[in-house]
């Protein structure tokens, strides 16, 4: 059993190393499969981030294995990784919360820590010269490294310095996406992406805090459980990040793609638009009967990816006109109107005798819902509106 105990103790440190190495392999494999340069950059940064975390944990492991606290050659990558992890983190958030502005990540972020830290180290070494005897064997450089390792505050200098701008960046991004929610089509994507980003951010703050508690032996003894918890946080954060990067759950990629298309090929798109066989009689005559006829005959809402722009194209108007039309005529936005159609379709389908054997899930997909989450959301929304109107109507009658 002794072997097993040693094994599980070691695994506390080894697990995060493996996990981050695996995550970095994931992103490395993804690098060549990119849609635009921003995406490739993001993926590269994520893989470097994972590798650095692996480096950091392996040097922590090294320290645990060898009981010599003074100086080890692995401390150099250790120090560097700890400086650069928060900066890379900021960089990742920068790329993720990227709203169409084509600006590169300022390189200055990567450069400043090295001279700053060097200055701090040199001055501390200058001000408080080490007591003779102990450090005579070590070279000057080793002494600086030792200083850096021993004073835990220095280690967190970049981590703490970068929490604030990262948080600000996320806040701005979140506000922007809330503004964009008025833009009906992208609603779902933006909410989703910002939500996981916030969770990601919280996890990293949590890991830093736990780490501060765990590795400051002055507060509590370095507890195994705290280190485990910290490892768990970091692993969860990495897996979440990698998953979302694989699934392309971020706006940057979409916006970028859209913009580049519009800018580079406006003429081209114009040509395509001209070539579309737009029936002349429907152009500009957007009326209720034509709209409803189209919906009831063609049933475009059965396609889960049917969008406002598709509808506008079919009716021969642009999207703003289309959106305004739906809003004014039915008093709901386009998405909700579409979902109402789908719910109606679902109700008729489920009542149909031929669908008796099918389960509600299949019928739901037949009615054009993308998945059960969309479906439940739509139903919930309708129910809440119904309740609201039910509440309001008696009041109105009284009044």
């Amino acid at each position, binding site marked *: *059993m*002794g*072997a*097993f105990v*040693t*094994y599980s103790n*070691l*695994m506390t440190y*080894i*697990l995060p190393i*493996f*996990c981050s190495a*695996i*995550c970095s*392999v*994931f992103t490395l*494999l*993804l690098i*060549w*499969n*990119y*849609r*635009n*340069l921003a995406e490739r950059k993001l993926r590269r940064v994520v893989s470097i981030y994972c590798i650095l975390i692996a480096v950091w944990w392996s040097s922590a492991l090294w320290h645990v294995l060898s009981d010599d606290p003074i100086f080890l050659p692995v401390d150099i990558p250790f120090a560097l990784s700890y400086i650069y992890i928060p900066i890379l983190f900021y960089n990742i958030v920068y790329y993720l919360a990227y709203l169409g502005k084509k600006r590169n990540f300022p390189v200055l972020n990567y450069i400043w820590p090295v001279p700053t830290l060097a200055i701090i180290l040199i001055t501390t070494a200058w001000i408080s010269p080490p007591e003779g005897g102990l450090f005579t064997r070590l070279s000057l450089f080793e002494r600086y490294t030792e200083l850096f390792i021993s004073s835990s505050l220095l280690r967190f200098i970049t981590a703490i310095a970068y929490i604030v701008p990262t948080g600000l960046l996320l806040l701005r991004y979140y506000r922007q996406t809330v503004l964009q929610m008025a833009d009906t089509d992208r609603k779902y994507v933006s909410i989703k992406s910002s939500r996981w980003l916030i969770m990601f951010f919280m996890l990293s703050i949590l890991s830093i805090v736990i780490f501060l508690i765990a590795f400051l032996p002055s507060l509590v003894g370095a507890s195994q459980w705290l280190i485990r918890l910290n490892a768990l946080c970091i692993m969860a954060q990495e*897996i*979440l990040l*990698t*998953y979302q990067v*694989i*699934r392309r759950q971020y706006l940057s990629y979409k916006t970028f*793609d859209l913009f*580049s*298309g519009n800018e*580079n*090929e406006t*003429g*081209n798109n114009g040509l*395509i638009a001209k*070539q*579309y*066989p737009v029936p002349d009689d429907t152009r500009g005559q957007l009326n209720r009967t034509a709209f409803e006829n189209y919906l009831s005959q063609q049933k475009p809402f059965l396609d*889960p990816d049917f969008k406002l722009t598709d509808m506008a194209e079919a009716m021969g108007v642009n999207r703003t006109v289309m959106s305004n039309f739906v809003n004014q005529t039915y008093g709901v936005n386009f998405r909700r109107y579409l979902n109402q159609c789908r719910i109606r379709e679902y109700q008729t389908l489920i009542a149909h005798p031929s669908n008796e054997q099918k389960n509600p*899930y*299949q019928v739901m*997909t037949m009615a054009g819902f*993308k*998945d059960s*989450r969309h479906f439940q959301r739509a139903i919930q929304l309708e129910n809440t509106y119904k309740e609201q109107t039910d509440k309001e109507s008696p009041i109105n009658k009284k009044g």
Partner: protein
Amino acid sequence: MNQDIGRAIVFSIPVVSAAVGLIMISLDITRSSNTINRKIHYSIITVYCLIMLYWSGLVMHSVARDAFITYQPVFFSSFSFIPIFLYLITYIITGIGEQRRFPVYHFILPSCLTVTICVIAFIVPFRQRWTAIYDNEVSLTSAIVDITFIVCILLSILYSVLSLLRIKSYKRQVTDYSADIYRMSLDWLSFIIIFRVLLQTLPIAGLILGIGLFNKLGFIWIFTTLPAVFTHIVLCLNILSENYVIIEPVTAKEKEMTALGNYAQLGRERVEKYLEDKKPYLNPEFKITDMAKDLFSNRTYISAFINREYEMNFNRFINNYRLKEVERLQAEAVQRKQKISLMEIVIHAGFSNYRSYFRAKKMVKNDPVSVD
């Protein structure tokens, strides 16, 4: 002791990679949009669970020996079920339009093996099993264990061959269905299967040649786990990025259409006008069913028509249009004196990525049949 711990740590790499894959796939499961995708997700989750069981058995084998003896039936049954479930995934992905359930008889053989091992676990006393596994004495129990192990390996090789055959027949069908070169190639799946076969032959060779696998080879064993880790990562990555094209089964409506013969007859002009006006090929996921829907025709007819008239399959046909679009965009960029990277142009021309563009180009070069 130290060597045992080292071995255990090495064997836990695949456990971690399978766990990461498992978590990611489970995160993805709420998002899967249709029944087939959900089926794939569930079977992948099963595969990862089995893989985790299998490798954690190996970890126990080196560190917690007593636990391993009790765990052994689980270890063997997971090992025998992995190839079946991988084949199930291949079966779902490469379904050629027909709606058939996965035959249950595939599960019979591994269940038999599991039962055998369980029976041994019940009959043979603990001490004897311990010596059968850890000491190199030849006894009836160790012989049976070895034989089941060999049968498991043979089973996995057999199923790999079956999967490869299925992929081959699928590839023949899919060229007439989709035009997404990258997604329909399923190279990753064949890669995983072939890799697994290679990996499986190693232990069997060791068993037959009588090498004390875990003791004498020492550090070489580290490198045999890494390919396994790599296959886990590739599997998860490709499932998450949906690198496969599923041929939709022929719907009742389509069948009716074919039976009655009331679909539109096509002419070259109509097809070309449709493609040039609407440019549906700009969508990387453009399929023959989309074309059939737009032209009010049916897919067998269109595929036969393209084969006859243009003497190429649907895939070639559509990709030729995309290549022409790339040329046109390039010319336009030159004309406007704008610098647009080839990457962006390729994406805008409807290729899903750079690789499919190169493949399309190579295909044209190898067999130059002019488009017009």
